[in-house]
C-alpha cells in the first residue's frame, strides 16, 4: 500500500508540473454554437415565465409557455440536425412524423385540456 502511494506521488508530481490538460475554452463561438446559446436562453426564459406565473394564471396559459419550450427546442434540433435527412431517407420519414406531432401539439396551444382547467376561473 505504501509503495502504491509513493508510486502515485512520484508519477503525479511531474504530470502536475506540466500544467492542466483541460482548461476553460476561449475559442470564439461558431454561428451554430451562438444560435444554440440563444435557443437555450429562450428556452430558459420560457421555463422561468412558466415557473413564476404558476398559480397566478390559468393552467392553459402556463402550459403554453411549456409548449414554447418544445417548439423552440424542436426548431433548434431541426436547424442543427435537419441536414441529416438529406442523406438518410428513413430519417426524412421520422422527421415528417415528428413535425406532424409537433403541429398537432401546437394545435392544442393555449387551449383548455380535457379534464378541466382547474385554475381557469372563466
Amino acid at each position, binding site marked *: 500500500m505504501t509503495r502504491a502511494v509513493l508510486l502515485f506521488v512520484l508519477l503525479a508530481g511531474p504530470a502536475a508540473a506540466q500544467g492542466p490538460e483541460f482548461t476553460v475554452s476561449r475559442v470564439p463561438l461558431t*454561428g451554430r454554437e451562438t444560435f444554440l446559446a440563444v435557443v437555450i436562453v429562450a428556452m430558459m426564459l420560457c421555463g422561468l415565465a412558466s415557473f413564476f406565473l404558476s398559480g397566478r394564471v390559468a393552467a392553459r396559459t402556463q402550459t403554453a409557455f411549456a409548449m414554447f419550450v418544445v417548439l423552440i427546442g424542436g*426548431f433548434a434540433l431541426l436547424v442543427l440536425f435537419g441536414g441529416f435527412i438529406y*442523406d438518410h431517407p428513413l430519417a*426524412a420519414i421520422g*422527421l415528417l412524423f415528428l413535425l406532424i406531432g409537433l403541429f398537432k401539439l401546437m394545435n392544442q396551444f*393555449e387551449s383548455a385540456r380535457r379534464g378541466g382547467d382547474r385554475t381557469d376561473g372563466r
Partner: protein
Amino acid sequence: MSQSPRSLYFVNWWIDAAAIGGLSIAAFVIARLLADGGTRAIELAQAGAILSVFVNYPHFSATIYRLYENPDSARQFPVTAYALPFVLLGAVAASLWQPALIAPYFVLLFLIWSPYHYSGQTLGITMIYARRAGFQVERWQRLALSTFVFSIFVVALAHRQQRTEPTTSHGVTLPPIPFPDWFAPVATAVMWAGAAVFLWFVVDWCRKHRRMLPPIVLLPAASQFIWFMPGMKTAAFYEFVPLFHSLQYLFIAWAMQISLQVGREGQERSWRAIRAVSMKWGLWNYAGGIALFIGLPWLFMWVSVPTATIVGVLIAAVNIHHFFVDGVIWKLRHTSSASPLMTNVTDLAAHPRPASA
C-alpha cells in the same frame, strides 16, 4: 352544442358550395381544359398574385382581427396574443441574422406546416357542416376522415419531393427531401383506406336515416383531394390553391363575424346591419393584409439580406402566427365558437319573431 340550425347553409346552397370548394373544383376543370402552360401559366400566376391582395392577405388578417378585435378576446388567450408575436419576431431575427443557417429551416417548417394547416381546416369545416346536417361524427368516423384528409397532405408532400433538383422558394433554396420510394405508395394506400372507411360510415348513415347525406358535408374533403392530388399536376391551378383555402376561411370567418355582431341581443337584425358589419370587417382585413404582407417586410428592408429572403422569412412568420391563432380561436368545443357557427345569415336579416304568450 345541441343547437340545431334552421338551414344547412350559412347563406344558401350556391354561395356555400362555391366558397367551400365548388369554385375551386370548377377552376380545376377549367384549368385542365384550357391551361397550356408557358405564357398562360405566367399570366395566371400574375392573376393569382393580384387576387392574393383581396383574398389571401385578408384571410391572415381575419384571424388577427378576431383575436385583437376587443380586449376581452386578447385577454382570453394572453400567450397567443402578447407572447407569440415576440417568439416569432425572435425567429425572424435569427433567420435574418444567419440567413444561410436558419432561414432555410424556418421556411421549410412553414412549407410543411402549411398543408397540414389546410388539412386541419378541411376537417374543421367538414365538422361544421356535419353538425349542421345532423351527421354524428363520432370517434371512428373522425379517425377515418382525419386519416383520409391528413394522408392527402403526406402523399402530396412525398410526391412533391420526388424531384431531383433543389427548388428556390420564399428566398431560400431547399433540396428535395429524399423519402424512400415505397413511402408515397404506402401513404396513398392509407389515404384510400381512410376514404373507404369514412364512405362506409356515410353509406351506413344514409341507410339508417333513409336519406342522402347533403353533399356539402363531403365537399371540403373532396376539394382538398382535388387541390393536392390531381391539382398539383396542373400548375395553372395549383397556383390558386392558397386562394381557395383563403376563400373557405374568409367565408366561415365572415359568417362567424355576422353571427357575433348582428345576432347579439339588442342589435338590429337586417340586411343593412349585415352589410355594415361586412364592410367594416372587410375593410379592416384588407388593410390588415396589406400591412402584414407589404408593410411588415418593408420595415425590414434595411437588413443586408436579399429582399426575397426577407420577404420569404416574414411570410413564413405571418403564416406560422396564423396557424397558432387559428388553432386557439376556432376550437369548436368552445361554445362561444360553436354557437355562431350554427346560425344562418338569412335568419339574422329577419327581425326575431315576438315570443308567444
